[in-house]
Structure formats: structure tokens, C-alpha cells
């Protein structure tokens, strides 16, 4: 079938998210949709999926104008969507999530869970996505959760499948698997819309590439016509530096040293398993690993948000294993948390207030009793300028910023002071190339200023681009330490998956 979006316009209070956007996709082809944060990609797709109703413009299926009152209509029309933020109920099992809305039922509307399991099995077998129907979503790694999303879509036999930034959370090997899946979908005659920030991937998998900027389509091209730099320029509207430029590290003395660190989660499962490592001043150490292998817990323990069950953490010789987050912060530790919405920001507060969230109490801003908001305001203006946060007023709510700019607020807050150690977790997740470039350069600047930097990212490209040393985490253990210059992404990916590259002695 052929799907046309014609002159779609959609605005939110104060934002024109889509401005007369026209796109089309047909069975058997992959359309890549690329654009900065806030360019309007998700909005456009939500319009297509019936979640939003457009202000104007229309959707045509095989030329027939149609309107979607709800997602149900879109689903019925054969449109499936894997959302940027997974639409999975964490406390439900895989099967329950998959059949939600099309539940097989027995007498009195009672759930036929056996049937549900079998439905999941059928689809996942057909497309070689193995899944345990009874696993709880909240216990599954993101990669698997994404499979569940895909199975959901396939189960409702969609003819056009939209993937909103699907690869952001995957390992190289998982990404390759994902591309296999996409291919098999295309072979099965389905049309695919593939939203991404990663130009490489777009070039690799897409038949056509459409670029969105500030809510409008600024151009359409094909992998054969365009290269990364060209597309990046279309996206951002200016030439972009894609590879991180940094000269080799000058490591100094140890700043962070972790020994025999073990952490259990509330249910008593071992999530960080007897880890030891060190980070020296002037170097960037990257921790690679598939999400859910203990990185989160490791970082939370290093930053004092989680109690260690065993082992010790030292900062510049002082034992800080039991120090409070604030003390660590005052000792010169910065923390860029992995989830900006959940931890990094209070989105209901102003940008200025968020810019001082971790040091509002310092004499600079507070006499211990009252706050000097004037001072905060001035400092914030400064930071916003230096760190290129796009806003017209630091007193606006943080919620009014786009993802990338929210992240810049956190980076500005955490890096804009004298540091001994910077711990950055997913520093550029879901952030557009323009911002990525900027954030990376800031991190490198910190390193060169003599800070010890620990990067934790599930995006291998990022870890490889930034790190001077890479530690690979798997099942709570550090399974390898490699030099990014001497090791291939593929090999690291294998470590991340728990196996060993050929030719590496066990």
C-alpha cells in the first residue's frame, strides 16, 4: 500500500511542531526521517498514528483521504508504531503487553493467557525474535523490550511500520539484528519509516531519506546522492563537526579508585559484582555495556545515591564509600544522570533554578537561610550563553526546553565548576547531532583541564569516540578493558554481549 502525508500542520501551545509537512512511503521501502531534537518527527508520526489530530492537512492511504480519530483507526488501517518512549506497561508480562487491546478471551471475557502466549510465540518465531512471553517487562533489557514493541506491531499485522529512534538504545550487534528485522519486514512487503539521529544508520538501511528542520521538510535525498556531512548540514542548517577532535590524553594520578565494589538491588540480586577500577586525572574512561548490566547501579553507587554492600570507593585518596551525594559533590564530583527527566531536572521549575539544582546551597547563592535569586539569575544567563542553551528567558520552566537543550542545562550545571571527577551517564541520549557535537567538545575540554572523566553510555560509537580507555560491563562484572584505538566496535560489541572475539585468550 502507499501512504501519503499531505501538508500536515500541527501546533502546540506556543510551538509550531509541524508546518505543512508532506511525506510518503510505500510497501517494500524504508524511509528514513531525520531531524534535530524538536524538529517535529515524533509529532508527525503521532499524527500519522492517530494519537494527535492535525490542525490541517490530510492522510491518504492508496490515494484515499482518511482521518484517524484514534490510534485504533490507525491500527485498523494497517499502521504500526514503535514509539520513541516504549509504550510498555512495566509490571505486565510480555504476553500481556503484546495482546493488550486484542486480548484473546474465553468465557465471561476471561483472559485466555495460554492463547496469548501462543500468539506471541507464533509471531516472534516467524520473524526470529525470540521472547519469553511470561517475562516481566521491567526485568527485560531495553533491546528485548524493543522486540516486544515490534511483536506488538506485527501481531496487529501492520502494513506500514514506524520506528521512532529505535537504535538509540541498542548495541552494535543488536543494531545489526534490528536491521535484519527491518529487512525481513520489507521482504514481507511492509513499508518502514525509520526515525533516527544516526546518519550512518540512515545511509545504511534507508531507500529514501527525508530531513526535517523546525517542523518543515527541508529536503529529501537518497543514500546514493548524499553523505553524512551533507545530511548533517541539512539537519542543523550549518556544517557540523562529526568526529570528536581530541588529542591523546595526558593521564595524571588516580582520582577515582574503586575496589571490590559489590551492590545488590532491593530484592537482593547482585547487580554490581566485585568491580575494581581507577580513573586518573586527564583521562576519559568509558564504560560500555548493554543497558541493564549494572552500569546504572554502578553510577548511582559512585555518586552516593545507592549504598554499596561491599568494597570501597575513593576520591583522590579519601574514602567516600558512605559519603552523602552532597559531600561527594562538594568534593568536586560532577554527575550527569542517565535520565534527565527523572533525575536531572525538576521540569516544573525554572531553567535558572535547575541550573543551580546541585549547588543552590553554596555561599555564592544562599546565606544558608534565604536564596539570592538575583545572583542565580545572573549566573544562569551566563551559563545559558556559554553552553548554548536555546531559550529566550532563564526564568522559563525547564519543561519548555527540547530534549537536547534540557541536556545542555544539565551539562552546564555539572561541568561549569572546578572538578576532580565527572561522571557522565548517557550524556547525549536522544540528543541531536548539533548538541552532541557540543556536549562532546565540552567533555573533552574538561579532560584537558585535568578532570578525571567517567563516561557510561550504551551508544558504543559515543564511548569509542570519547574514551581513552574502555571498560566493558556485562552482568555486573567488568569483562574487558580495551583501547578504543586498537579495538573494533564489533569486538567490543561481542564483549558487551558476553562472548569473546576470536583470538582472545580466555
Amino acid at each position, binding site marked *: 500500500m502507499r501512504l501519503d502525508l499531505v501538508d500536515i500542520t500541527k501546533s502546540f501551545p506556543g510551538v509550531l511542531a509541524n508546518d505543512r509537512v508532506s511525506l510518503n512511503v510505500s510497501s517494500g521501502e524504508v524511509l528514513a526521517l531525520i531531524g534535530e531534537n524538536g524538529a517535529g518527527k515524533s509529532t508527525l508520526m503521532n499524527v500519522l498514528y492517530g*494519537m494527535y489530530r492535525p490542525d490541517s492537512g490530510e492522510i491518504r492511504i492508496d490515494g484515499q483521504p482518511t482521518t484517524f480519530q484514534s490510534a*485504533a483507526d490507525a491500527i485498523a488501517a494497517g499502521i504500526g508504531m514503535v514509539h520513541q518512549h516504549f509504550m510498555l506497561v512495566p509490571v505486565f508480562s510480555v504476553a500481556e503487553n503484546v495482546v*493488550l487491546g486484542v486480548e484473546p478471551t474465553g468465557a*465471561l471475557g476471561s*483472559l485466555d493467557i495460554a492463547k496469548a502466549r501462543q500468539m506471541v510465540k507464533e509471531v516472534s518465531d516467524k520473524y526470529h525474535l525470540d521472547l519469553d512471553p511470561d517475562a516481566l517487562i521491567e526485568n527485560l533489557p531495553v533491546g528485548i523490550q524493543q522486540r516486544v514493541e515490534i511483536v506488538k506491531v506485527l501481531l496487529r499485522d501492520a502494513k506500514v511500520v514506524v520506528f521512532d529512534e529505535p537504535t538509540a538504545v541498542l548495541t552494535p550487534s543488536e543494531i545489526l539484528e534490528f536491521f535484519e528485522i527491518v529487512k525481513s519486514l520489507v521482504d514481507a512487503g511492509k513499508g518502514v519509516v525509520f526515525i533516527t539521529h544516526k546518519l550512518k544508520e540512515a545511509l545504511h538501511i534507508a531507500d529514501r531519506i527525508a530531513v526535517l528542520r523546525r517542523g518543515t521538510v527541508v529536503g529529501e535525498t537518497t543514500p546514493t546522492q548524499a553523505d553524512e556531512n551533507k545530511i548533517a548540514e541539512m539537519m542543523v542548517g550549518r556544517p557540523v563537526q562529526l568526529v570528536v577532535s581530541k588529542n591523546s590524553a595526558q593521564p595524571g594520578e588516580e582520582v577515582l579508585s574503586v575496589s571490590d565494589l559489590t551492590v545488590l538491588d532491593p530484592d537482593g540480586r547482585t547487580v554490581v559484582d566485585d568491580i575494581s577500577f581507577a580513573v586518573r586525572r586527564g583521562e576519559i574512561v568509558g564504560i560500555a555495556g548493554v543497558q541493564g548490566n549494572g552500569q546504572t547501579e554502578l553510577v548511582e553507587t559512585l555518586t552516593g545515591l545507592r549504598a554499596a554492600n561491599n568494597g570501597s570507593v575513593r576520591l583522590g585518596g579519601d574514602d567516600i564509600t558512605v559519603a552523602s551525594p552532597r559531600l561527594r559533590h562538594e568534593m568536586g564530583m560532577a554527575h550527569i544522570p542517565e535520565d534527565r527527566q527523572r533525575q536531572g531536572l525538576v521540569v516544573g521549575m525554572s531553567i535558572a533554578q535547575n541550573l543551580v539544582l546541585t549547588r543552590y546551597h553554596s555561599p555564592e547563592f544562599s546565606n544558608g537561610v534565604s536564596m539570592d535569586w538575583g545572583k542565580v539569575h545572573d549566573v544562569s544567563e551566563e551559563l545559558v550563553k556559554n553552553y548554548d542553551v536555546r531559550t529566550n528567558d532563564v526564568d522559563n520552566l525547564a519543561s519548555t526546553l527540547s530534549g537536547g537543550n534540557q541536556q545542555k542545562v544539565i551539562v552546564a550545571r555539572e561541568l561549569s565548576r572546578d572538578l576532580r571527577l565527572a561522571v557522565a551517564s548517557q550524556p547525549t541520549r536522544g540528543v541531536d547531532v548539533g548538541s552532541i557535537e557540543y556536549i562532546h567538545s565540552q567533555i573533552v575540554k574538561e579532560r584537558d583541564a585535568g578532570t578525571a572523566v567517567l563516561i557510561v553510555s550504551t551508544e558504543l560509537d559515543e564511548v569509542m569516540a570519547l574514551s581513552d580507555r574502555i571498560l566493558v560491563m556485562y552482568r555486573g562484572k567488568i569483562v574487558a578493558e580495551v583501547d578504543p584505538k586498537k579495538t573494533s566496535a564489533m569486538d567490543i560489541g561481542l564483549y558487551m554481549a558476553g562472548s569473546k572475539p576470536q583470538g582472545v585468550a580466555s
Partner: protein
Amino acid sequence: MSATVMLSAEQRKQSRNTGVTLIILGVISAVFFTQDGGSAGFGLTEGFTLNLSSQRFAQVLAVALVGAGAFQLYRGFGRLMNVFLATGTALFVISFLAWSASGESFNFTGMLQDTVARSVPITLGAVAGILCERSGVINIAIEGQLLFAAFTGSIVGSILNPWFGIVGAVASGVALGGLLGVLAIKYQVDQVIVGFAINFLSLGVTSFVGQRVLVTKPEYNYLTPFRPIDVPLLSDIPVIGPSMFEQNLFVYFSYVVVAATTWWMYRTRWGLRTRAIGEYPKAAGSLGVDVLKLRYRNLLIGGAVAGLGGAWWPVGAVGRFDENITGGRGFIALAAVIFGRWHPVGAFIAALVFTLAEAVRLKLGNLDTGIPSEFLLSAPYFVTLVVVAGFVGRSRAPKSVGQPYTEQ
């Protein structure tokens, strides 16, 4: 390293608290309940009264509890922890009763009977709350729903007959559920505000209209409540039988409602979708589930259940309505929702804990304990406080409860 060897901070804290609790209970019964030599008569059935020496019992129990506590602290019962805690507490209560009743005797079975009977409005109110909150809408208005239902139930029941009274009560519960729905879902009013407003509205309207109408027409406010009905066979089981199966229909209604809601919530399509929209409505919405419609539906059903609970006063207990007759039971029910962890059975148990404490304090009133009546009166609330703090602790609410859902 495996989890059995090492415990997370949470677990250590929990198991430590349990151990400490057990020991404290043990010490208390050792110090106080062993004072009195007499034997206490627990009236179990017509003929049979179980006499147990409060002193002996307390001594044995004390040793057992302290032992268990120590073991818990030293090794830990692991899985069985809560079983031990529950049993320990139950025995402790019995020891307490034995102590207060020593030298006398009291009707133990009757006590349990009252416990179950009085749990009805709390249980039904709580289930109503669960139905709403599981689908993502906070229901602070339980008290108001109960009160209004009691009001209409009494009037309709007096004019027509008790059964119609129930129908009327259910209808008014549904009406208030609908009001909550329209305001909270359609007009997205702060759900807690709506709840409070509905509570005030019910209190005001029932008192005001009651005073203007019922005083004039007392015949509109008198009906004959249901009498107890023995369930064949089941009611013959000693102790359990009389306490659970020699009750009036409302008690059986509440059993059915609890069972049905549990099944409905965890075994049916509706239930699955309900829990989904309470946890993550967008997810359900993205799969074409009509979130708002389902929320309405649940609020109406919840209203009906609350209505049934309200009917208990006129039809199931006292045969009439009086100003503010529910006297805060709806808020106890609200507590039971949380205490019961948003699970119908949990709520039922929570209600029983509360009413058991009430029944016990009434017995104590008749027994010879030196405790001032004012403190006896606060006992049920105090017990709930302790139980919630000591055993229940942090409980996990439906994620999206309280947040209005917009399709865009």
C-alpha cells in the same frame, strides 16, 4: 556471590525490624501478660468455652516470640518471615485478651462475628476506591458516596422495600461516581478537589434535606434491616462458621464483591486494560484502548460498589439514616485501599484488622482492665497505625493515578 548470603539494605532493614518487633512483642507479654494467675474463658460455641491460663500462655508465648525474634536477627526466616510475624502477632493479641479476661470469660466467637459484620462498609468502600484508582483516578470521595447511598437507601427502602433501598443506594453511588468521572475525566478538575467537594456535598445535602424532609416525614426513614441467614454446612464449622457464615446478606455480598473484583481485575480483559490504564494509559491508548471510556466505566462500577456499601447502614444494620451516619468510615476505607495495596483481598484484610481491633476494644470494655475508656476508644486507630508502620510500610500505587489523560 548469591543473594542468600548477602542482603540489600532494604532487606536487612526489613528483617531487622521484623526481628525487633517479634522480640518486643515477646518482652511485652513476658512483662505484662504473665502478671495475672487466673484462667481466661474464650467462649467458642454455645456449649464450649476454652479455658486457658493467661499466665502459662503468656510465658510460653514470650519464650517463643523472643526465640523467634532472636533467630530472625541471627539467621533470618527468609521467605517465612512474614508468616512468623503474622502468627506471632495473632498469638500476641490472644495472649493480650487472655490477660485481660483472666478470671473471667467472654464470647470470642461473637467477637469475630462482629469483626466480620462491621467490615462490610469499609471493605466495599475500599473496593470502590480500588476500582477507581486502579484505572488511574484518585477517589477521595468514598465517604461521600457511602453517606449519600445510606441516605437514599434509607428513604427508598422505607417507602418501597429494603431491596429497592439497595437499588436506590447503588444508583446514587453510581450517580456520584459519574459526577466524579465527568469532573475528573472530562473537565480534568484536580481529582482530590473533586473528591473533597463530593464529600462536603453529600454531608451537606443529606443533613440539609434530611432535616427539612425526614424530620417532617419520619415514616420515610424506617425500614427493617436484613436478618442473619445461616449458610448450610459452612455455618456448622466451629468458630469459623458462626463468625463468617451466620451473617446477613451484606456480608455475603462483600465476599462476592471481593472475590469477583479480584477475578475481574486479574483474570479478565477488562481487568488487564484497567490495570494498564492505571499504570501507563498512553501505552493502552496507543493500542487503541479507549482510556477515558474505561475510566468512566470503572468509576461507575466503583460507585455502585460504594453504593452497596452505603446501603449497609439502613438495610444491613440499623434500619434508618441519621445525620453523618457514616462517621468517617469512608476515610477508614481510603486508608484500607492503601493499606491493602490496591488489592481487593488486601483491602478486605485491612478492614478486618481495623474492625477486629474495634471488637477487641469493646470486649475489653466489658472485661476488667485498668485501661481508661478514652484509650480503649483510640485503640483501633492506634492498631492500624502500628500495623501500617510495622508491617505494611511502603506500598506501590498505580503509577498514573491522579493524572488526567488527554488524547492530545
